[in-house]
């Protein structure tokens, strides 16, 4: 059975969709369609609030932004003064705590970088990035 050129192209395009969709399902935990941070490493403001006292909030923004305003009880930990600030954070961390890192907004990379360093270098479990960042927290809480 001979197919016309457009039909051949359409069939090939449709066939290619199948493994693509399969991979998208397989990798759904490793990549989010909304943001470069995988879903397993993100947490919404509501969920983080539900964790209550077992949450440690980390502010990854520069010093001046933290000084202006921050999540109550948040600890400043940015890469500008990582060596100085890290021990201060570790002093309040204990096993079982959930660490939620935020920076200014969803598009900001600072929180993701700080979270990655905490996971890779300090090898801490349960480190998350706040979905929507400081902007989202302010919207929910103020």
């Amino acid at each position, binding site marked *: 059975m001979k197919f016309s050129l457009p*039909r051949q192209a359409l069939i*090939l395009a449709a066939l290619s969709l*199948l493994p*693509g969709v399969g991979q998208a399902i397989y990798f759904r935990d490793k990549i989010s*369609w909304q943001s470069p941070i995988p879903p397993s490493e993100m947490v919404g403001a509501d969920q983080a609030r539900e964790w209550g006292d077992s949450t440690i909030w980390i502010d990854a923004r520069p010093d001046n932004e933290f000084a202006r305003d921050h999540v109550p009880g948040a600890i400043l930990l940015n890469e500008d003064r990582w060596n100085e600030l890290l021990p201060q954070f570790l002093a309040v961390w204990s096993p079982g705590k959930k660490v939620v890192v935020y920076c200014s907004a969803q598009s900001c990379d600072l929180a993701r970088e700080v979270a990655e360093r905490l996971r890779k270098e300090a090898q801490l479990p349960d480190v998350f990035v706040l979905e929507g960042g400081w902007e989202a927290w302010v919207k929910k809480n103020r």
Partner: protein
Amino acid sequence: MRFSLGNFIWRIVDLIIAAIFIYAGVLKALDPVQLAHDIDHYKILPWTVGVGLAFYLPWLEIFCGLALIFRLFYRGALSILTALVVVFLVATIAAKVRGLDITCGCFGHASQNWSFPAHLALDLGILAALAVLCYCSVARARANASPMPTSS
């Protein structure tokens, strides 16, 4: 099919082009998460579009490459591959003309460090080969369509 040098060369070019696209597709399909990040790195496409392309494009290349090898949906595969290369070329040239430093990452993360001239040369070479294959395909279709001359 009668053996001729022309047919033989046609088949070789078929296989080379198919191998290039299958290789490129497999490299990218092995790590679509990294590919999505590589696409996002240039901040041209929205993240969601980049993720969609990262999952879809490698398989399109693989299937079209296989179609060339097995001569199934041959002309359809040729059209898709030609369209892909033309889009890559136009995007690369347009970006370069605007002063943007873009490499198409045809071979995924492996080709990140290739220079613009290297990418351009490869894309033009592939386009030329595809043009040859299109020509051969059309010529063969015409030859099959015209009736054989009868001898008196």
